[in-house]
């Protein structure tokens, strides 16, 4: 199907299903209930899930396949965002040209950085990419202020040219990003009993692009090119003595992953038309590394899962404050309640990084293959159990 093996096609279908029904799946608790704060099905967060999913899918093509660990991929994301916002300022509020431009500019940018950084491998490569990203961040923050907006970030203004669209709306406001008139922020609310689901245009555009990105990633993984990338990770000596030039392969992988990052950046700006330098900071580069490793580097679905998990922690787990904890443990006697809350408090709310750190450590130590490996282990255990259950029945007649 679509040039995919059966197993990969099934995976693609799962991703399509998940993204299609995400507004419902992520809102399992009735609105207004105590658990409603764990609902992640609101447009802003869902957009972030898929956008960072795209970012991580692209990063995985470089890191997961070739083993080259880039610590500067946020730079491409930032460049993508700036390009998209400039497109909104100069051309029109249509997201399509903005996204296309962000991919192209990020691709060119990664070609230059990749060409230089790939002269080294291992830790030196990582440091070079980190240096480039920090330089880009510093430039965007200071010297390049006319292009990047410096500290305040790049924002839309009423006097922007927007040659193919209106500079401002009839009521004198800044227009919003749209796809041929379909506004990104437009949502349709659906209420089923006590549950409320929001279907957002921006989310579905991003989700469609995620599915396409995922499909392309599968094709790359299963192509001769993908095989060569895995060969690079495995043994570069044999690679060159087999008559293959590793450099252009790694550079191509670097540029492809840079373009994915630019795509994510462009989408981010399309959902919320502003871009700031902090998107290029090393913490943002580190985040995508965490996402990929947490989910499972080198696996297809892993990076998407990792991105979802980290963004869920960041946005939902961080909302549990001491008041919420006191409500939860209100049934306990006063002294005990305070004690339990004091113990748990550092791990939730603002301390969500701590919990994420522990989860990350556990995954790296016990599941080096990430969440995907965890899933495989569980599946294998279940299958074993099933055959164990089935076998006694099968052997009984022989007794």
């Amino acid at each position: 199907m679509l040039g995919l093996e059966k197993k990969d096609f099934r995976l693609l279908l799962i991703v399509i299903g998940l993204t299609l029904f995400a507004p419902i799946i992520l809102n399992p608790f009735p609105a207004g209930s105590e658990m409603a704060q764990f609902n992640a099905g609101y447009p802003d967060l869902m957009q972030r899930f898929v956008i960072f999913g795209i970012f991580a899918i692209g990063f995985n093509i470089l890191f997961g396949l070739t083993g080259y660990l880039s610590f500067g991929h946020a730079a491409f994301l930032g460049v993508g965002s700036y390009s998209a916002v400039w497109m909104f300022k100069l051309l029109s509020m249509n997201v399509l040209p903005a996204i296309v431009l962000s991919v192209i500019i990020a691709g060119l940018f990664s070609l230059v950085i990749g060409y230089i950084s790939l002269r080294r491998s291992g830790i030196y490569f990582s440091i070079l990419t980190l240096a480039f990203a920090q330089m880009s961040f510093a430039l965007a923050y200071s010297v390049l202020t006319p292009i990047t907006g410096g500290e305040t970030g790049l924002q839309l203004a009423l006097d922007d040219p927007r040659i193919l669209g209106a500079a401002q709306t009839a009521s004198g406001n800044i227009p919003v990003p749209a796809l041929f008139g379909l506004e990104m922020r437009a949502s349709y609310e659906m209420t089923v009993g006590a549950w409320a689901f929001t279907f957002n245009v921006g989310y579905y555009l991003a989700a469609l692009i995620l599915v396409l990105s995922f499909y392309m990633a599968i094709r790359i993984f299963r192509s001769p090119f993908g095989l060569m990338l895995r060969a690079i990770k495995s043994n570069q000596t044999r690679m060159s003595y087999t008559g293959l030039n590793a450099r252009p392969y790694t550079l191509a992988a670097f540029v492809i992953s840079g373009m994915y990052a630019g795509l994510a950046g462009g989408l981010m700006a399309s959902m919320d038309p502003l871009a700031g330098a902090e998107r290029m900071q090393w913490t943002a580069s580190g985040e995508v590394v965490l996402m990929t490793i947490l989910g499972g580097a080198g696996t297809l679905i892993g990076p998407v899962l990792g991105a979802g998990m980290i963004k869920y922690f960041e946005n939902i787990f961080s909302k549990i404050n001491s008041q919420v904890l006191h409500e939860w443990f209100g049934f306990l006697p006063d002294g005990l309640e305070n004690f339990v809350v004091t113990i748990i408090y550092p791990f939730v709310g603002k301390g969500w990084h701590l919990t994420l750190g522990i989860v990350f450590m556990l995954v790296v130590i016990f599941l080096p293959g990430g969440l995907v490996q965890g899933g495989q282990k569980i599946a294998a255990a279940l299958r074993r159990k099933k055959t164990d259950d089935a076998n006694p029945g099968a052997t009984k007649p022989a007794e």
Partner: protein
Amino acid sequence: MGILEVKGINKRFGGLQALGDVNLSVEENTVHAIIGPNGAGKSTLLNVLVGKLIPDSGSVMFDGQSVLGRKPHEINQMGISRVFQTPEIFTDLTVFENVMIPCFAKRDGAFRMHAVESIFAEKGIRAQAEEMLADVNMLEKRDMVTSSLSRGDKRRLEMAMCLVQDPKLLLLDEPTAGMARADTENTIALLKEIRTKRGITMAIIEHDMNVVFSLAERITVLAQGTPLVEDIPENIKGHPKVREAYLGEAQV
């Protein structure tokens, strides 16, 4: 004119003359062994041949073209494949993938951006790899990850990866070093089989005299960076100069 012509190669490492005026000619369709005591410059010579080291002077011509200054992958594309002392294979991939990679390298050259074609749809390459694996009796191990192979199988696989490219010259760097007796015998048998079946030109660098005399059709003895004698095996065995070079090891 041999397929590989080495003329007047010199290589110094600081004060050490690793290779001094080395001349060597490997004829097409022969097995040429290069032997010599430790430190004779065998490995240095091999590294010059594959483009890993650049000599201070001299020329290396392969099939009418100079190999000096070319990168290892370019030299491979000219038709020289190399087997390493410890097998160099793609350890995280399956046996079948390992053999497919050289097939792609042979067909598509050093780089090709074939990112959307599926490896499952590459019928020609798959057939070629399968045939090769059947040839070295490894077809039933095709889906094994190579890190779990035995040492003998790793050697066999590496050989298959080189042979599937149908090289004009196969370089072997001490193919039996550190092997148990039985493995050594197996490797000799495998090489003999390759030799008779495919008629491939080979240059072997070897320490083990047993291996050398059961395979080589021509032998060059290297000592202190210079070729001492070059002759057929029968004449090498009792050669006084060779005995002298090997001194204590002179049970040749």
